[in-house]
């Protein structure tokens, strides 16, 4: 589904990613771990199309199509979703209206009419239940005054609504207490199927107890220095990153 080949990217003159190769197949969960500053968030930003980062070499394809020339919204329309480490607050736009706009923009890109209000409402209700979200949140301004946990839950709610092919969860566990973590992980697991894939970016092994990866990659200094199965995460937890350096 997603192929990353020899990816070099950075900000201005500073190279942060120094040759990344990953292949992700439908139905798989990949975890990307690594210490602070290793390039984890850069990688997720580059896949999602953040224009702050410049790709200097390599390629990223989704289902065989080169996506590097696509804008972030076009990538979203193709099925890429990024759950942000720090979701942005948008005062004055309710979560419901925001997600309606997002869904209808996607439909527009596919040549479809707007989703009828009734169907939209039903879908919102179902997905909110999945994340055990209080419906009151949905009529509040997007992320405004939300706690860290509420913001993350809202991210996964949006993911549930948009039904992406490839979801990237960037430090979704940060700022979550254990109960919220379980709910969020449970939501992610329920959304998993044989046709979609997930990249979990995390600092700690904790989240991987709940979202169990098929593959674990260790990112260090802009390169993947080790890949393995889920047991690699446990080993890292025990020995720390220094063990691999």
């Amino acid at each position, binding site marked *: 589904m997603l192929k990353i080949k020899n990816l070099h990217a950075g900000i201005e003159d500073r190279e942060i990613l120094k040759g990344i190769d990953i292949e992700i197949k439908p139905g798989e969960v990949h975890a990307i771990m690594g210490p602070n500053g290793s390039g984890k968030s850069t990688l997720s930003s580059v896949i999602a199309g953040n224009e702050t980062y410049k790709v200097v070499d390599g390629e990223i394809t989704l289902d065989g199509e080169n996506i590097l020339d696509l804008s*972030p919204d076009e990538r*979203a329309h193709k099925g*890429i979703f990024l759950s942000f480490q720090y979701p942005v607050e948008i005062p004055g736009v309710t979560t419901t*209206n925001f997600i309606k*706009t997002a869904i209808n923009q996607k439909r527009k890109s596919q040549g479809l009419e707007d989703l009828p209000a009734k169907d939209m409402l039903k879908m919102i209700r179902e997905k909110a239940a999945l994340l055990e979200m209080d419906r009151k949140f949905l009529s509040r301004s997007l992320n405004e005054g939300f706690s860290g946990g509420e913001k993350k839950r809202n991210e996964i709610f949006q993911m549930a609504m948009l039904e992406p092919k490839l979801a990237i969860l960037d430090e979704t566990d940060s700022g979550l207490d254990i109960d919220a973590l379980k709910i969020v992980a449970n939501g992610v697991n329920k959304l998993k199927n044989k046709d979609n894939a997930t990249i979990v970016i995390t600092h700690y092994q904790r989240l991987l107890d709940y979202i169990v990866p098929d593959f674990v990659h260790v990112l260090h200094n802009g390169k993947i220095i080790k890949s393995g199965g889920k047991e690699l995460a446990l080993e890292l937890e025990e020995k720390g990153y220094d063990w691999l350096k």
Partner: protein
Amino acid sequence: MYLKDKLLASFMAFENKGNIDLDSKVHDIRTKAIANFEKQGFPTKKDEEWKYTSLKNVLKQDYSVFPKIGTTVELKDVKKYFLHEIDSYKIVFIDGAYSSFLSDTTHEEADVCLLSAALKKPKYKMIIDHYFGTVASTKDSLTSLNTAFSKEGAFINIPKNTILEKPIQLLFFSTGRESEVMLQPRNLVIVGENSHVQIYERHQSLNDNVVLTNSVTEIFAHKRAIVNFYKVQNDRKAASLIDSTYVHQKQNSIVTVNTFSFGGKLTRNNLVFNHEGEYITSNLNGITIVGDKQHIDNHTLVNHKYENCESHELYKGIYDDSATGVFNGKVVVKQDAQKTNAFQQNDNILIGDGASINAKPQLEIFADDVKCSHGCTIGQLDENALFYLQSRGIPKKEAKALMLFAFANDVVEKIKIPALKSRISKIIAEKLNVELGFEI
């Protein structure tokens, strides 16, 4: 002939036309006002208060200072400028003359009528003599000019203990029958003790001929009165507006003036609050969204003279293309005004490469036990937030518009008339040139 000379010459003709009741106090005020205007003339960029706003281009037109009256306007052509979906009182002027056909006045629960008619009735004349010209500046040359020629405008007199459920709409249309016209409406609003009123004001030209409006409004809020005033400025590109609004507040009154500036060639808003009592609240809110070469200047002044009063000011501006703006917010806290809470915030986003804003918060505090703050920001859209919206599939143009909409929204949220709130939201969406994809 220069506009100033033309106006001075016209004043004699104006008096001789019998526009003025020579016995009234108003006559005296007018005579002094024209003398002040003659002495000062129009402000230039040499005046500190006009440093960033030049009237030069606006004043070089050959204005007709007594517009031809008698032009009729069909309701269907102007309906969209009214808040037509709600029940309201209306005072409508066409080229400076009262339109009884489009208006809906009253003398029942309150007096909502025109100033000239009120002056002819002894019981109102007494009231007008008592209030007229007492809070409007006698030093400001443009206000003096308006005072000198004040003939027509709204007279709103709410007796005490009256909660006026219906909002009052003040509409000033110019038909463009003449190529350049100058209008000088003058409004007087008196709100009695414990009374509530909501007022919507709009100046609108109906074609692209040049119009200059020099409007003055005096508002008197008695004890515990609540006044919500909404100014909607969304005029065509050939129209310029100088609006001076003076508010006089008594103890425990709450007056809110909301200024929505979207249109026009040059707009200057002078908004002055004077406190005459304790526990007064003054709210000043504004949204400016302009583009092209539009110019908007918001000058505000809050005079805190008594203890335990508060003022809250929030102005937001979005400037596109080569639009220019001025925000000059002055807050004076006099020595006796202890326990004052005065807050001021002015946030601006520049979208256009040629856009600029001159922002000047001015706090003059002479009391020592007060809470005062001011903040001013000028910036561009947050790239990270844009990326967030785009990553959800919202294209850049719509994402930008959504963010600008969100930026302006906390001021929109303060609108207490639902029909007006949705109207303003729609104008903002139009101005930002975007389909928001949902009902507001």
